[in-house]
């Protein structure tokens, strides 16, 4: 039986894939880890954002034991937190259902690995191999179900929540789980409906097509501002963050569904929440902010001038390092006036950071200039007036597009943090009435209006 299947697969009339195509196709799976990589930065961002909003400095005490302690302004806390979570006692309450209790935290976290599969990270790669055109899609799963698959996967995470709530056999956890489930049911509806407008305009569920449509016409946020608002609100509610964190409201039900969890099991919930935010940010950036597309620059234009794009990216990085250098210099002066006992140690660290960033910044800027002058993207051939470039140009352009998408996603990650540290928590009934009475109606009206306008303007579909 299995032999037959393998035989059938091998006999399929598949186009022969070159080594480079194989490498890229398999290498794309690395994008699965992008939400995880984001988490590290996101937790740091959350802490610093929160502390600066509240007029304080935020945690900054754990240090790497080199050069008399490198604190990196608190970035090291991520790693010490990780060590703490991994080495704490993993406790299972006596009356918990052992199996579901252990399995539940993994579900929400697992989903974070699955959803990046349908996101277009870059425009489809096309390059001229010498005798034919190779093509690799920018998504891991290039399927026309696209966003629907993503919704299906991301709503699976609620099973983890509900299961953990039920399995921990605690009243508070159960209440939290019920609330999370109710929220998810009410907000999923308006979330899906709010997107119908943009599907209508793009004419596809495939995220790649939606981005291509935005690249060719205009960003989704300009044609669908209402949908953007509804979707953003529903997404914030979906991730269960303030002001919609009724599921874990510590003033009423202690910590909600993860009340009975400790150590890394709790850590999985914690990281799952952040991963969910990252995924949501990437999805919003893809749907409403043009995804990987740079405004007014089509993919072909980007490929033709990939040297400029790379130089600009590197230049931006160099400028950011330079900004960091200035910031450290400033803060060094401030700290010296505080009269702290450890002023010497800190001064050494700040001098070290100042020196490294002071060297790195010009080096990166010089690299940017070198890239601009040395690289020279030339079209290898032309098909129907469209220039086809060699492989390295396509890959470099794809790298730039990934950077653009990540930058846009960061913007939304910041909105999540910003909203959380601004707004107080809604009451449970307010959350429900906002979801059912306002957002759902807005989404429906938006769909109808979009449909009418699309019919009037384009006259087809």
């Amino acid at each position, binding site marked *: 039986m299995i032999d037959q299947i393998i035989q059938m697969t091998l006999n399929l009339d598949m186009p022969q894939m070159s080594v480079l195509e194989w490498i890229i196709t398999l290498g794309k799976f690395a994008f699965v880890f992008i939400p995880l990589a984001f988490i590290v930065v996101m937790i740091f961002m959350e802490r610093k*954002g929160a502390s*600066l*909003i*509240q*007029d*304080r*400095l935020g945690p900054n005490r754990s240090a790497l034991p080199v050069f008399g302690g490198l604190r990196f302004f608190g970035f090291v806390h991520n790693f010490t937190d990780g060590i703490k979570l991994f080495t704490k006692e993993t406790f299972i309450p006596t009356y918990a259902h052992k199996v579901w209790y252990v399995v539940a935290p993994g579900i929400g976290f697992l989903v974070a690995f699955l959803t990046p599969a349908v996101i277009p990270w870059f425009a489809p790669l096309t390059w001229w191999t010498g005798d034919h055109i190779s093509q690799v899609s920018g998504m891991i799963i290039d399927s026309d179900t696209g966003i629907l698959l993503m919704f299906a996967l991301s709503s699976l995470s609620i099973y983890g929540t509900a299961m953990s709530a039920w399995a921990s056999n605690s009243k508070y956890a159960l209440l939290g789980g019920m609330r999370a489930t109710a929220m998810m049911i009410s907000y999923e509806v308006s979330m899906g409906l709010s997107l119908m407008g943009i599907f209508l305009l793009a004419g596809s569920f495939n995220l790649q097509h939606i981005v291509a449509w935005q690249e060719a016409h205009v960003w989704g946020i300009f044609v669908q501002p209402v949908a953007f608002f509804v979707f953003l609100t529903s997404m914030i509610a979906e991730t269960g963050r303030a002001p919609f964190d009724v599921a874990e409201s510590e003033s009423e039900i202690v910590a909600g569904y993860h009340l009975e969890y400790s150590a890394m099991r709790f850590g999985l919930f914690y990281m799952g929440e952040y991963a969910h935010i990252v995924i949501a940010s990437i999805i919003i950036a893809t749907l409403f902010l043009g995804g990987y597309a740079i405004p007014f620059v089509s993919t072909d234009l980007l490929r033709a001038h990939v040297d400029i794009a790379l130089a600009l990216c590197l230049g931006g990085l160099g400028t950011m390092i330079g900004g960091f250098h200035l910031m450290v210099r*400033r*803060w060094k002066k*401030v*700290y010296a*006036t*505080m*009269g*702290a*006992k*450890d*002023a010497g140690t800190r001064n050494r660290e700040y001098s070290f950071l100042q020196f490294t960033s002071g060297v790195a910044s010009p080096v990166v800027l010089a690299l940017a200039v070198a890239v601009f002058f040395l690289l020279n993207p030339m079209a290898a051939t032309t098909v129907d007036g469209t220039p086809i470039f060699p492989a390295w140009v396509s890959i470099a352009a794809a790298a730039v597009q990934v950077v653009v998408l990540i930058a846009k996603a960061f913007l939304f990650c910041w909105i999540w943090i*910003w*909203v959380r*540290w*601004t*707004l107080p928590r809604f009451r449970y009934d307010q959350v429900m009435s906002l979801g059912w009475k306002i957002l759902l109606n807005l989404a429906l009206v938006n769909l109808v209006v979009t449909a009418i306008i699309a019919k009037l303007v384009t006259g087809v579909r």
Partner: protein
Amino acid sequence: MAKVIQRRSLTLLERSYLWEIIKGMGTTFKHLFRNFKNPEKMQLMSYPEVEVQTPQNYRGSHRLMKRPDGEPRCVACYMCSTACPARCITIEAEPSSDPRIEKKPRKFEIDWLVCVFCGLCEEACPVDAIRMDTRKVAISHYTRKEFIADMPRLLNWDPKDFPANDAQSQKAPGGKQNQQAKQIWGLEVKHS
């Protein structure tokens, strides 16, 4: 006189909630931007590297006062341990070698893990033997045992940390050296 405050009804813009959210987010962003731009203007102190200046009358951890001859001033009357709501003072008395004083403590222990720093012991003491003016509140140790302050620890304080012009906070009078007591109190301690 009671003052009636009329509740202002919300305007349409305020009731829409969205505008107020944007205003609130503006406020938080203003804070973020200001603190990022001028970190030195933040009202903060890099504790514990920077010493916090607490006022002299701040109620911190305890110390036992001494007589001029270095003996504890405490007369083991158990007033403080009776007054203590947390029951964290343990005293064991023994006869005093000074003929004018009946008892002195052999053991005097305060469990700082149990203490609620209410200051009632300080109030209760009839001879001003226990004080809470060390201004030390951050007590941190690795074992529970270390949190129990015994008599040598309570007696071990540096007169330099306390105001020099306040003689009473330096050394409690009494005991054998009447001359010194006279200097500080201005009166002699009577022999029995």
